[in-house]
């Protein structure tokens, strides 16, 4: 027992820590936080994909991009209310913006969301104006909006919004969130796959050309494979801190929801759909997209809740803070 944290305690046969009391506090956040991370990621991912389609795609791809911007705006809209609802004093939400302090990921995120939301709304309005959905004077204003500039700004802001949430959770002392440095990568990859899925869902319903649908489907497959790779590395690095996620309290929604429904089912459906054409393909890709989007929420929610559980794990906390990482 030479590696026992207290030789005296080891000799006496008593526990290493102070009873079984946690070392760190359990986070006070509730469901609004993972819901916001999920929608914010989806919005960022969808905006990025739509911008890429508009910049690099064919004329047909660009029609799909138009719907994508509307999807991004729709997902971004509930983000701020969710974030505000979770505050202890929601009427003081604007205190987030009384200073600019990028050292705090929470502050950086609040500014990013405050900038991203109007950009997505303006970008969606520009599409609505082009489609003739806005009344005369508004459509004239919407036509004046600089689309390439909005695409560039929105893509950067959307990517930050998609990734910072994982960094925010990682920059704490909660064992599951902090042990591995990959959580920001996991959330970014999940935002990418769900963003592609959201655009694909809209495209499939709006009778987009099959060629474009297949491009989105292939991109979705690659994003999902990337997500699985980063997630696997994250779990491997997390070790014992990941027990509440992979073994205990949240293992079922994690494996069945986040991994099975969110990644494996879409991978299979996209493979099947890739070899076919017609109405059946659209249905398959719609189902695949819905699974991917639902799985993306499961991933955020299970990692969030399992992290709260891991806060109660005294040994995992000690493992996080030992000089020689056990």
């Amino acid at each position, binding site marked *: 027992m030479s590696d026992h944290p207290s030789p005296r305690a080891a000799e006496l046969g008593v526990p290493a820590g102070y009873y079984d009391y946690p070392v760190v506090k359990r*986070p006070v956040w509730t469901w609004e936080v993972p819901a916001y991370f999920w929608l914010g990621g989806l919005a960022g991912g969808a905006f990025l994909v739509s911008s890429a389609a508009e910049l690099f795609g064919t004329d047909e791809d660009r029609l799909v991009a138009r719907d994508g911007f509307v999807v991004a705006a729709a997902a971004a809209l509930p983000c701020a209310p969710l974030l505000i609802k979770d505050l202890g004093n929601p009427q003081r939400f604007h205190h987030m913006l009384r200073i600019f302090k990028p050292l705090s990921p929470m502050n950086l995120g609040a500014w990013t969301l405050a900038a991203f939301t109007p950009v997505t709304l303006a970008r969606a309005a520009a599409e609505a104006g082009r489609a003739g959905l806005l009344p005369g004077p508004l459509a004239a204003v919407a036509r004046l909006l600089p689309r390439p500039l909005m695409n560039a700004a929105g893509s950067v802001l959307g990517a930050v919004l998609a990734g910072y949430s994982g960094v925010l959770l990682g920059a704490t002392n909660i064992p599951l969130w902090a042990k591995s440095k990959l959580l920001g990568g996991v959330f970014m990859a999940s935002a990418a796959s769900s963003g592609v899925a959201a655009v694909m869902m809209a495209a499939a319903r709006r009778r987009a050309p099959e060629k474009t649908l297949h491009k989105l489907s292939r991109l979705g497959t690659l994003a999902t494979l990337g997500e699985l790779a980063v997630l696997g590395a994250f779990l491997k690095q997390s070790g014992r801190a990941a027990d509440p996620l992979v073994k205990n309290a949240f293992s079922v929604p994690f494996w069945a929801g986040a991994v099975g429904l969110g990644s494996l089912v879409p991978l299979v459906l996209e493979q099947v759909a890739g070899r076919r054409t017609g109405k059946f393909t659209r249905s398959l890709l719609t189902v695949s997209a819905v699974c991917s989007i639902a799985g993306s929420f499961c991933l955020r929610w299970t990692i969030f809740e399992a992290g709260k559980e891991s806060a109660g794990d005294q040994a995992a906390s000690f493992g996080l803070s030992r000089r020689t990482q056990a």
Partner: protein
Amino acid sequence: MIDAYRRFMNIEAPPAPQRPKGFFTDTSLCIGCKACEVACKQWNQLPADGNELSGNSYDNTGALGATTWRHVQFVEQAKANNSRVGQRWLMMSDVCKHCANAACLEACPTGALVRTEFGSVYVQQDICNGCGYCVPACPFGVIDRAPKDGHFEAGRAHKCTLCYDRQKDGLEPACAKACPTDSIQFGDIEELQAKARRRLADLRARGETSARLYGMPESTEAAEVGHLNAFFLLLDRPEVYNLPEVPRLPRKTMAQRYAISAVVGLAFAALSAVAFGRRSG
């Protein structure tokens, strides 16, 4: 221009910095009377936490929290066979460490958490919007948010203020004032550190070889959070008192975390560009 803005916004100049003050908690002198807990509750008008018995020695407080800013721990070290050899009872009054590099202060997005002119870390209650980010940031599990539906300062973050209000009037904090054995000492941090080194040498000379200081500028636990403005003399390894061996400062790994996230994001952007091919395609 800036001066006009300051006048218009009624922004006061910050108080001039004083010599940093803090706590030296010498656990070898603690008798577990909990006078510090009571004095703290009384002075700061903190509500009671209930009447539950933990079954863990005399510790029915459990942990520091939004309404508990001093917490006396009772560590019973005894052999299972009830032999009295080597048996001992360690007591320690835990408190916010007022870290030199405070994780809570760095995490705070509103600027509610500030460093006072006395070197302590303080939550401005009129600024805090209860975002809760300081709670998981603290490596010691000190700061907490009061319940949103509670009666005490609902939905805002709270912790030891190092009796900022008393210090403003030149008084020592309530816990230090109440401590009957001088286990809790308040004063100029450098003087306290010198005192602690002398006390440690004295204890070691008298055979208490497992005594150690926790939170000194030169010790391993200061590697990331810096020295602690509330530091301790312990009689066993830090983990026996639920103190982390090297408390982590989240900022230290933040750049790497952002970089990893950015790499994944850029990879995805590149894939998207390739997936949609050439404009002509």
